[in-house]
C-alpha cells in the first residue's frame, strides 16, 4: 500500500492493496515492458486468430432421429410422381435427358428411366437413394430430402408401379 507520510509503496497482503499494487506505476510499466514485444504485430497473429475463430466455430450437432415412414407397405407411389421428381431434379439442365452428357443414364422418358433402373439397380440405389447418395450433383439442383429418397426407394422395391 502507498504510505502517504513517507511517500512510498509498502508491501501489504490485503486484497485491496494487492489490487492497488497491480496499479502501481512501476508494476504497470514493467508489465508493459514485458508485454510489448509479445503484443507487437507479428507473423503468429494470423494463424492464432485463424485457429481461434475456427475453434469458436466448433460445435457438435446431431441430426434428429428420422421420423419419416420407411414402411413401404403403406406408401403409395406411382411412376408419374417419381418421373415428375426426376424431371424436376435430374433432367432439367441438360443432364440425363439423353441429349446432353452423360448419355449413360438416359431419363428422357419414364420407360427409359425404368430400363436404366432395371439394368443398374445397385448403382441407382447407391447414388440416388442411399443415405450418402451423391445425386443430384452440384449443378444448381436442390438436394433430395430424405423423405423423397425413401419414396423413390419404395417405388423401386415395389417393382416401379404405374
Amino acid at each position: 500500500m502507498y504510505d502517504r507520510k513517507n511517500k512510498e509503496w509498502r508491501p501489504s497482503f490485503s486484497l485491496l492493496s494487492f489490487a492497488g499494487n497491480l496499479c502501481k506505476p512501476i508494476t504497470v510499466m514493467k508489465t508493459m515492458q514485458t508485454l510489448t514485444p509479445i503484443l507487437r504485430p507479428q507473423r503468429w497473429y494470423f494463424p492464432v486468430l485463424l485457429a481461434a475463430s475456427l475453434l469458436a466455430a466448433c460445435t457438435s450437432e446431431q441430426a434428429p432421429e428420422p421420423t419419416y415412414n420407411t414402411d413401404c407397405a403403406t406408401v403409395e407411389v406411382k411412376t408419374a410422381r417419381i418421373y415428375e421428381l426426376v424431371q424436376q431434379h435430374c433432367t432439367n439442365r441438360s443432364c440425363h435427358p439423353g441429349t446432353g452428357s452423360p448419355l449413360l443414364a438416359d431419363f428422357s422418358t419414364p420407360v427409359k428411366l425404368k430400363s436404366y433402373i432395371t439394368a443398374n439397380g445397385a448403382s441407382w440405389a447407391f447414388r440416388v437413394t442411399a443415405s450418402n447418395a451423391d445425386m443430384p450433383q452440384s449443378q444448381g439442383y436442390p438436394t433430395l430430402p430424405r423423405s423423397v429418397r425413401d419414396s423413390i426407394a419404395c417405388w423401386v422395391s415395389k417393382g416401379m408401379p404405374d
Partner: protein
Amino acid sequence: MLHLRLLTVLLLPASMAMAQEDLGAIFGKDSVRRDPVTATFKSTRIINGQSNETLAKRDLDFRVAHRFGDIGGSGGGSSTFFGLDNSTDIRIAFEYGITDKLTAGVSRAKGSGNFSQMWEVLGKYKLLQQTHDNRIPVGVTLFANAVVSSMKSSPDKEDVYYFDKFSDRAGYVAQAVIARKFGNAVSLALTPSFVHRNRVGYKDMNNMFALGVGGRLRFSNRVALVADYFYAFRDEESKDYYAARGTDFYNSLGVGVEIETGGHVFHLNFTNATAVLENQFIPETTSTWRNGQFRWGFNISRRFSLGGR
C-alpha cells in the same frame, strides 16, 4: 598447354573426392551422419493420407487428386468403362511452403460422403526430423485442416446436410504423422488422427479417432510402391444402427505406384475410398474392395519454386 588443362579437368573430381574423405576424417563420422534424413516420402501425401513431408520455403505445390467410379461390382464393369465414366471426387489444391517446416494451403474438393462442395484450409508443421545417427529416430509432422461445405441445405431437419447455421457446414481434422525411413528403399508412417464434424447424422459420431498406417517401397530412383490404410474407431452402436439401415462403414485402403518425373510426382492408385479429404474418407467410407467397389485414382503434384533458387 592443352594437355595440361585436360589433365587438370580429369584429375579434379578425384582430388575433390579425396578432399571430402579428409574432411570426414577430421570431423569424424558422427558429424556427417547427424544430418537430417530427407525425402522419407516423395510427396506430401502417401495416397489418401498425409506423409511427413512439407514443402520447401517458397515452394508452391499445385495438386490435383481424382477418384473415378467403381471398377467392379454393380456400379462398375464395362458399362462404365471400369469406373472411368464417373468421378467420385476431385480435389484441386494450392499449397505453399511458408518456411521449410511450415506449409499452408487451400483446396476445393467435389466431396464424396455426407457433404459436397468442400473448401479446405490446411496447415502442416514439421515438428521433428529423423537424423541419420538415430538421435531422432522418427520424423514427426503435425497436420490440421478445416473444411466447409458450400452445398445447398436440405429442407429436411433429419438430413445430415440440413444447415441451420454456418458452423453446421464445418469439419476439422488433426493428425500427427510419425514417419521413419529405413535405408534408402523403405519408409513407413503411422498417423494417429482425430476427425471432428460439427453436424452428423443421427447416431453418427461428431468426434472420431482413427489410426493410419502408410508405407513406400522404392524400386528405383523414380518409381516406388505406396500404400496406406486408415482404421476408424467407430463405436458399435453407430455401426449397428447404420448396418440395420443398409449402410456399412469400411476402413480405407489405398495402394499405388509413385512415379517421379522431374518436378512432377504422379500417383496412380487404387482405393476403396470415394473421397479425397480426410474429413470424409476416414469416417464416411461405405465402399469395400470385396464388392469390387474400388477405383482408379491419381494424385498429381507440380511444384513451382517461387524463391528464385
